[in-house]
């Protein structure tokens, strides 16, 4: 997943004519939803890059378009000093579905103030997955009903999966000899 978009700072390069728009992206463009294109991943799944302030309008539009299932929500750190990425993998769940359409929405967030609106109100499945992304990367999902740490202890300080995280030197965490 990581490394598919290595130049988040220059979305012009990404949306160069090299990448041809997929079905979901063309539908969004037709209906006037602003977004950038990113290269498809190794499975050929369409990747859409969205600015944080347009995430909720675009997600509701995609939900209305038929993406009724949030298959996976997650986050990753794009690299030292680079952006934090929150991604949403959507698919269409239906009776007798055969290779349903899939799309991945990515939001690049500045690592000094990573704030993005929560998609919990569009897909309820985002509840714990956004909590985990908050727990591991410190991405603040605004409007989430219960944004608390999920896996780490509640009094933990820091965001463990960020590239610049330094583990605390607790006695329990030091090497056993």
């Amino acid at each position: 997943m990581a490394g598919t978009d290595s130049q988040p700072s220059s979305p012009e390069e990404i949306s160069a004519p090299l990448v041809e728009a997929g079905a979901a992206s063309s539908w969004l463009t037709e209906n006037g939803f602003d977004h950038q294109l990113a290269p498809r991943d190794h499975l050929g799944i369409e990747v859409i890059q969205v600015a944080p302030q347009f995430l909720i309008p675009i997600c509701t539009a995609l939900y209305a378009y038929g993406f009724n299932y949030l298959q996976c929500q997650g986050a990753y750190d794009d690299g030292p000093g680079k952006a934090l990425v929150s991604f949403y993998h959507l698919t269409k769940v239906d009776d007798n579905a055969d290779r349903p359409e899939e799309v991945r929405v990515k939001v690049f967030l500045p690592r000094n103030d990573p704030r993005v609106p929560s998609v919990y109100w569009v897909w309820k499945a985002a509840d714990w997955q956004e909590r985990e992304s908050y727990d591991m990367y410190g991405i603040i999902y605004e409007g989430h009903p219960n944004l608390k740490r999920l896996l780490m202890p509640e009094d933990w300080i820091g965001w463990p999966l960020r590239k610049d995280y330094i583990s605390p030197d607790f006695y329990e965490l030091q090497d056993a000899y």
Partner: protein
Amino acid sequence: MVMTPPSAANPLSLAPGEKLANPSAPPAVTHGLSENVILTTVDDLYNWCRLSSLFPLLYGTACCFIEFAALIGSRFDFDRFGLLPRASPRQADLLITAGTVTMKMAPALVRLYEQMPDPKYVIAMGACTITGGMFSSDSPSAVRGVDKLIPVDVYIPGCPPRPEAIIDAIIKLRKKVATESMQDRAYTLQTHRFYERSHALKTVPPILTGQYLQMGTHATPPKELLEAMGMPIAEPVAELVPENEEI
């Protein structure tokens, strides 16, 4: 009940009242005694009772417990060692730490250990509970060895160890229990039970309050998000209805 061996009396014709000075058969009186009297110490009897009924705590945190559960089952059957898994630490005297212990689980583990009655034993099962195992290189949360938290009697290496290895560890622990003496207990009693250290963590209120969906925050989205969702969804939905029918 002392029996004279018939072979000693018959072939020799002894005068009445005459005794053989050195009979070839074992002496009848002491032989009968040693077959009917048991000599032991209270220590041995007490240890034998304890080692034959080591009740382990039904405790498992990760994949090692799968092997431990196989040991409970009929194929490996550790009931024959007198091990009955207990669900309460108050009834258990053996703690087998099966699986990775994280910083979040550590207080619960120490509390379980403290709740067990003395004398109690700990078996560290698997690489994770000995050194942190495969998590020892870069995990921000795995405790590198439970012996940093509680004293350990037997270590079982493996990732995870086979049930036979646990049986081996239990036999070694039984040997250890068998050599203990009540007289030594005053010297072996632990005054300092586990490594305790005050961390400079910021104390926060607990996350699990028992109120989840009852908090009321799950009912309606905040106003800003409602506006963001409501505005665009109105137009596309109206356009969408025919488009969906096409599909």
